């Protein structure tokens, strides 16, 4: 349903609901005196409460509680909090069985979440065209036109969920981690069930990548330019510089691939990243301290994961990365739509890692939990499906959480999403009308980042996208709502 309001002549436009994005968003486009786009803001107007909510709870409850802040990537929060609680529990390195169980769960989660974004949310835009009629531009429309995509959408996602269930007892909101380890190993029965399908899953991820590349090659200019700009990037990388979605140190690079910082231990993140609060959004704006608020913003997520690492430690994904990076002609890849290509490579990597782990006997080990000397503070970072996720807690002498700070992936991408929206508005806004085309393009730009708004703002519930157009004085010219 769409509704347009025109008030007080041609001055301000609002678009409110971006569909197929978790949570809700509101976009305001501000025009200058000359009627040109001056500013675009992607507001997040939900209430942020989880950091307060967990204060006072026992620290071992946190990995189970915080995953409830997100219905999309609960596992990432479960793992992120668990790693922070390892630190609190005085355990620097969990046992091989515990680490591999957690990794297996994580790869299952990243695989299934990226599959949902790519197949269910983004593929209608990419495969049917941004301007395809809205009744067709959905996963059913895609399945009609490309039946194999429907198969991939269902089975790759399902496989990821099966991995989560096999490690944590259920497909969503699993419980695997306790501070210092895990509560079970992988049963032979589950291992064999997953082994049966894993080759097919790897192959389907490769097939999906090939299909996507054919889209990219037939729309090269669009792919290169849409909502795009050079930026800095940040992600975790492993000790060898390779992609590591579960553990490692932070690396940030500028648009020319010059390191801004690297080897930053999670515990030191606050020395490098500052969070700024702005009045018009509940979502914080993190930036790199040394570069300041103007220039210190960066991007995270699959594109950053590929740009920041030196290689990928699984062969098929690594070959795919080499081909992907060639788009950058010797530099980084900056195009915003490349998030999807990068997402598919991450999916291949996860499927390969799952296959590798399913043949690792450590997963049947029985040494599950370690204990250590309690510490008052713990920080952990993982690469969630949407990018770098930071969990930071302090705990008092009675084991109650006294402070919590979460910087979620969508928050890290906040400034970049605003810039992408502005770019789209500059290109696609004509006059003072919020056309269906403009709405569609704004949605496509935001969706490339796969934002998870309820998680970024720690709210519960889902709402639509609203786009508003404002004049130079802030008066509303038009509002368009997309449910």
């Amino acid at each position, binding site marked *: 349903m769409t509704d347009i309001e025109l008030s007080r002549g041609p001055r301000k436009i609002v678009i409110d609901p971006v569909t197929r994005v978790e949570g809700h968003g509101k976009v305001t486009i501000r025009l200058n005196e000359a009627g040109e786009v001056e500013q675009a803001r992607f507001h997040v107007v939900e209430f942020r409460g989880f950091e307060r909510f967990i204060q006072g709870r*026992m620290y071992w*409850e946190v990995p189970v509680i915080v995953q409830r802040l997100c219905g999309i990537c609960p596992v990432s929060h479960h793992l992120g909090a668990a790693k922070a609680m390892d630190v609190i529990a005085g355990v620097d390195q969990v046992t091989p069985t515990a680490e591999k169980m957690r990794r297996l769960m994580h790869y299952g989660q990243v695989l299934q979440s990226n599959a949902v974004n790519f197949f269910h949310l983004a593929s209608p835009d990419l495969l049917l065209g941004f301007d395809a009629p809205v009744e067709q531009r959905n996963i059913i429309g895609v399945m009609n036109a490309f039946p194999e995509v429907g198969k991939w959408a269902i089975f790759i996602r399902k496989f990821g969920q099966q991995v989560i269930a096999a490690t*944590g*007892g259920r497909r969503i909101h699993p419980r695997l981690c306790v501070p210092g380890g895990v509560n079970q190993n992988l049963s032979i029965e589950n291992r064999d069930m997953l082994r049966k399908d894993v080759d097919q899953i790897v192959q389907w991820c490769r097939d999906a990548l090939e299909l996507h590349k054919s889209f990219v090659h037939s729309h090269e200019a669009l792919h290169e330019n849409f909502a795009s700009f050079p930026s800095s990037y940040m992600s975790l990388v492993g000790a060898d510089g390779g992609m590591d979605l579960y553990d490692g140190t932070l690396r940030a690079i500028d648009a020319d691939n010059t390191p801004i910082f690297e080897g930053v231990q999670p515990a030191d993140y606050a020395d490098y990243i500052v969070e700024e609060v702005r009045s018009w959004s509940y979502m914080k704006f993190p930036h790199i301290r040394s570069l300041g608020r103007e220039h210190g913003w960066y991007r995270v997520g699959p594109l950053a994961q590929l740009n920041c690492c030196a290689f990928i430690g699984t062969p098929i994904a690594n070959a795919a990365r080499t081909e992907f990076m060639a788009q950058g002609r010797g530099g980084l890849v900056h195009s915003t739509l490349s998030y999807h290509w990068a997402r598919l490579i991450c999916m291949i990597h996860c499927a390969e890692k799952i296959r590798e782990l399913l043949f690792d006997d450590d997963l049947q080990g029985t040494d599950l939990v370690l204990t250590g000397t309690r510490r008052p503070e713990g920080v952990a970072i993982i690469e969630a499906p949407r990018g770098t996720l930071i969990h930071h807690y302090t705990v008092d002498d009675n*084991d*109650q959480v006294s402070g919590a700070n979460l910087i979620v992936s969508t928050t890290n991408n906040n400034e970049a999403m605003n810039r992408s929206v502005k770019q789209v508005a500059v290109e696609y806004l004509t006059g003072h009308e919020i056309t269906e085309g403009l709405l569609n393009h704004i949605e496509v730009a935001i969706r490339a980042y796969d934002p998870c708004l309820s998680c970024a703002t720690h709210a519960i519930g889902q709402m639509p996208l609203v786009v508003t157009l404002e004049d130079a004085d802030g008066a509303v010219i038009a509002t368009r709502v997309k449910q």
Partner: protein
Amino acid sequence: MDDATIRFTVDGIEIEAVAGQTVIEACDAAGIYIPRLCHHPDLAPAGQCRVCTCTINGRNGAACVTPAMQGMVVENETKPLNDDRRAIIEMLFVEGNHPCVYCVASGDCELQALGYRLGLDAPKQPYLWPGRPLDTTHPDIILDHDRCILCSRCIRASRMEDGKTVFGFEGRGIAMRLNVDAQGGLGETQMAAIDRAASVCPVACIVIKRDSYKVPNGKRRFDVSPIGSDIEAKRMPRT
């Protein structure tokens, strides 16, 4: 069969009891499950929660405190009784704060398990959201008053099994609360983690610290079999 054997029927099934047994004890032995919360086989009965209420010779009474008697006619598994039990469970849910989704006892909690068994989907009564403190003063034990259902198991266990007086109730009616015998909280009492009082709580009010979530989903007590099925298994035909 000797003279001491008492015979009576429960939902038309004839069972036997020995003198001194309560209705619930005789039913447990005979493989008939009567829902209960405050009753614990190792503790003296208290008749506190009324979940075990049955119709006994036409009148309602708590099975955990009613002695078995010759020829009595007991109704247990009836719709009106189960409706009342569900209403009691519902009131316990709304009068406390019960976030089962992340509770350490989830899957191992008798209140939750009874909710499932009795088909309590979503409470119809409004949640009262009481503000109750979390007592973390003890180095090894947490007292999470949000979850307390005032069953008195801990009081009975502390007094009769541990020889201490750590717990007691204060206040009346809806204002009734569990309290401990020290101003500064549980940490100032004589309570020890090995006390019987630390292991009888049917919910997550008394919890041993750092011991949570060790049992995976699917393997917790009531994931494996619904509450009461251990008792009912005694009546299963042998194969």
